[in-house]
């Protein structure tokens, strides 16, 4: 499928395999070596041992290559690469739809992705909660354009927390943030717990690894 350079695979390894003087195929001997098969023939046969010796030699050079790669990777500074990538990403943002803020007459809008970020952050002020998907839909009856929105938020909750209380607290924080920080009219906050995570995380790891 992705194979344009090599011949077709139907012949597998046999196509350019080699029959050792002892009657074994080189591919089998190497396969046994890789699986670390305990085969008396492999230990006693000079041809097989020679064949395996070649792989051992290769392996020792591979180790050297791996060490070189490791040491150059260890000193690698990801900062410039991350900056270059994010510079392009910021030219290709996906901000989502504009959502209404304040009174209908105000003509004030916020992009969905920006509002979602603020609401996720609010949800994560509840200890142990991590926020995932945050979708904002037009609120009002029948999804009408009345300047309100419905929030649907996925969270990972700590495994030992009573979920109804936890969800209530998250809902409250999200509501507060929407109201006070954004000035957004929210008609509903649906919380969906998508994962329970062990709450053994140390307290100082507030807000995860971000």
């Amino acid at each position, binding site marked *: 499928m992705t194979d*344009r350079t090599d011949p077709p695979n139907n012949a597998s*390894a046999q196509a350019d395999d080699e029959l050792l003087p002892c009657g074994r195929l080189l591919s089998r001997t190497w396969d046994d070596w890789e699986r670390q098969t305990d085969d008396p023939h492999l230990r006693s046969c000079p041809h097989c041992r020679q064949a395996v010796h070649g792989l051992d030699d290769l392996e*020792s050079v591979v180790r050297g290559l791996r060490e070189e790669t490791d040491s150059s990777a260890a000193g690698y500074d990801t900062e410039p690469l991350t900056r270059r990538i994010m510079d392009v*990403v910021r030219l290709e943002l996906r901000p989502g739809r504009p959502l209404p803020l304040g009174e209908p007459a105000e003509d004030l809008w916020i992009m969905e992705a920006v509002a979602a970020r603020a609401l*996720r952050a609010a949800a994560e002020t509840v200890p142990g909660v991590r926020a995932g998907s945050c979708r904002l839909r037009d609120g009002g009856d029948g999804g009408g354009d009345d300047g309100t929105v419905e929030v649907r938020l996925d969270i990972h909750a700590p495994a030992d927390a009573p979920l109804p209380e936890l969800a209530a607290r998250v809902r409250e924080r999200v509501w507060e943030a929407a109201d006070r920080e954004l000035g957004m009219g929210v008609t509903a906050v649906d919380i969906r717990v998508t994962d329970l995570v*062990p709450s053994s995380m140390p307290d100082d790891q507030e807000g995860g690894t971000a």
Partner: protein
Amino acid sequence: MVADTDDALFAVRAAEGDEDAFAVLVQRHAPALIRLATSLLGTAAEAEDAVQDAFLSAWRRLPEFQGRSAFGTWMYRIVTNRCLNVLRSRRPVASLEAADDVPAAEHTTSPARIAEGRGAVRELREALDLLSAEQRACWVLRELDGRSYEFVADAVGISQEAVRARVFRARRSLTQALGAWR
């Protein structure tokens, strides 16, 4: 496992347009992916370009990603495929020219020491350039990166049988190339 769960959250956020979440994923995964691309392509500059392209492609495709696999595995696959395309577009390297760069081995070192030395590693790098794109990719993922045949088959998008055949051919070429040097 906790890291994977965390990745999944950031991937969902990034899919919904949160570029800060994507920046976290880039920082978190770039070192391993640079290492992979450097092994596959042989030079740091090409590796950086491949990883950058892979992340940009990921940013564009994230809305359809849906978390079917771990984000790291997904990126590993994208980088592998990006590198495969780069390898395929390369013109065959003239091995004779490259051979001139190999420094003369010191006479006092034993063959075993030579095998572990930089000269042999350089020779291996050059021998890798002579492999086909698919052989090189399969061999690097299997041997250098220590992945299972199953994993390699998934990352490269071919059957395990095909991966085994390519790793075998690569080993033959490489053992021969290194044997010829000594």
